[in-house]
């Protein structure tokens, strides 16, 4: 930390610092906290009281029950998990090849991936939809998974970066001992990738869990809905019944909040390393 001379100016600065940070934290928290209040309110309380009032009791759960019957939480967790596993594996394998082997066309392949990260995602969906349609992949979970994996450039970059810092002497000594290239990857390097896998899981996990646009296009049957699409259906029937909507919002936020509180450090460091190529 920084060495400071204690002076009058220093004290003023200290006070200002806390005032600014408290204000910022309040601005960040208030919209969500109001949602928490509203989600516990009965129809009557919601219609007549002020929005900022506390609910009479935090045990009134009918709004949540109603919201849960709409959103299919388990399904979303399953989707997120499957996409994560596949995406981690294939990006790690690709990064291994691109980092450890020299062969004609390698540089070109790397720049192909780099350019792909420039293309705006939502714009591409216009034609990706066509391809998905002609392959018959719409309204299937595996179709959705394939799309998310195919448009995932960031994790490849995370792994590429990480491989740069893994010494090649590891591979060499293993090959000397008669290990095959497959063995080198699965037995030696993959276990060492743990920090990079953690980062990918954090970054990808959150973005897959929150993903809306692709699931809206490719998972149209109600029983295949993900968190975001399920939540979006609240616009119609509930209109401005915000006590239900807030309950729905909180249900989607809660798992993220738990995840964040448990893995705070990893989330922060993951953000930092993901941003370099993000």
């Amino acid at each position: 930390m920084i060495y400071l001379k204690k002076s009058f100016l220093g004290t003023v600065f200290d006070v200002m610092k806390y005032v600014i940070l408290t204000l910022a934290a309040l601005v960040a928290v208030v919209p969500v906290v109001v949602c928490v209040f509203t989600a516990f309110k009965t129809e009557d309380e919601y219609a007549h009281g002020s929005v900022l009032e506390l609910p009479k009791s935090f045990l009134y759960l009918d709004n949540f029950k109603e919201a849960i019957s709409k959103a299919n939480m388990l399904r979303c967790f399953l989707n997120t998990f499957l996409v994560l596993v596949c995406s981690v594996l294939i990006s790690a394998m690709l990064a291994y090849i691109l980092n450890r082997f020299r062969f004609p066309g390698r540089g070109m392949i790397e720049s192909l991936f780099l350019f792909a990260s420039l293309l705006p995602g939502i714009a591409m969906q216009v034609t990706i939809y066509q391809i998905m349609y002609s392959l018959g992949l719409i309204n299937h979970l595996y179709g959705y998974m394939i799309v998310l994996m195919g448009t995932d450039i960031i994790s490849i970059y995370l792994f590429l970066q990480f491989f740069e810092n893994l010494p090649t002497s590891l591979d060499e000594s293993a090959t000397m001992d008669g290990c095959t290239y497959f063995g080198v990857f699965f037995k030696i390097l993959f276990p060492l990738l743990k920090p990079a896998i953690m980062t990918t899981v954090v970054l990808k996990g959150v973005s897959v869990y929150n993903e809306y646009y692709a699931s809206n296009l490719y998972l149209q049957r109600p029983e295949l809905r993900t968190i975001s699409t399920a939540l979006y259906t609240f616009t119609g029937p509930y209109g401005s019944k915000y006590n239900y909507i807030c309950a729905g919002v909180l249900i989607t936020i809660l798992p993220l909040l738990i995840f964040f509180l448990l893995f705070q450090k990893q989330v922060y460091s993951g953000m930092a390393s993901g941003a370099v190529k993000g």
Partner: protein
Amino acid sequence: MKKQASSGSSSFKQWFLKRDVQRVLVILTFMAVPMLLLLLFTYIPFAKMIQFSFYNMKYIGERKFVGLSNYRRVFQNKELFGSLLVSLYYMGGGAVQLALALLFASLFVFKVKGEGVFKAAMFFPYLICGIAIGFIFKFFYFHGYVLDTILQAFGMKLENLPLWLQNTKINNIALAATSVWRYTGQNTILFLGAMMSVDSDLYEAAALDGCNRWQQFRYIILPSIKSIIVLNIILCVSGCLSAFEPPYVITNGSFGTATYFVQMNSVAHETQKVGLACAMAIILLGLIILCTVGQKLFFKYVFNNGTEDESAKAVRAKKKALKMQQRKGSRV
């Protein structure tokens, strides 16, 4: 020499264990899936996008070649092209967001009690899904609800308060504010990470030499995080051009809040004018590439003075040397 194996399976095994064969095999198997996916979901769609942009077509049914008329329509249609101007509000928001993040991060560099709580509170909005954020702010801005109640507590009258989402003078600012709310905390964490990686001896030496806080910020902190700021500005501009979720959920693009992507979404999926949507997508892509390259050049020529340029050169030379070394080392 080993004795030649007689059975077919073991000669296959020998062939398999040869280095060269294995090298080719591992490259092919590990690359096949990602390359196929890249082709299928990035480059084929991209090529088709260019092709479709010259046709008048729907998802199913006949196509008609129309040349450049789709592009002409995008530039001539005020509703479509004008929606790019809406991004300016988001860019304004982006500037505010970067400035705030810089301020908060530099405050965190000095000792703060309860740092973890402040950081967590500011960062968490980034993790919430766009749709949920949309609902939170639809509720927040609703006439007579959260924001209005707070302002009333400060003595304002409800009759004098505007309709935040319907008044065309302010609704875009209100929407851009939601994305400032969402991303400021994340930017703060990024900047803070870069600032903390500066050697703390530097600060101490500077303080001993009588530097005040502004000087510490200007001459130690700012140079050390220049590259991450540039990167964030670039990301911010392309993010602003492709803003989608706030207007889509909160106002559904009504009252002049439709951004380019919201327009494109409705052109592509509601009216199914696929050709027109593709032309829009390509124009946007061109703009994004232009901005990215332009900004890189701008920062290279405007902000680099003599000494920093030299250090940049040194860094590049170092990187090159490292790469060469690695290349030698990695020939397994």
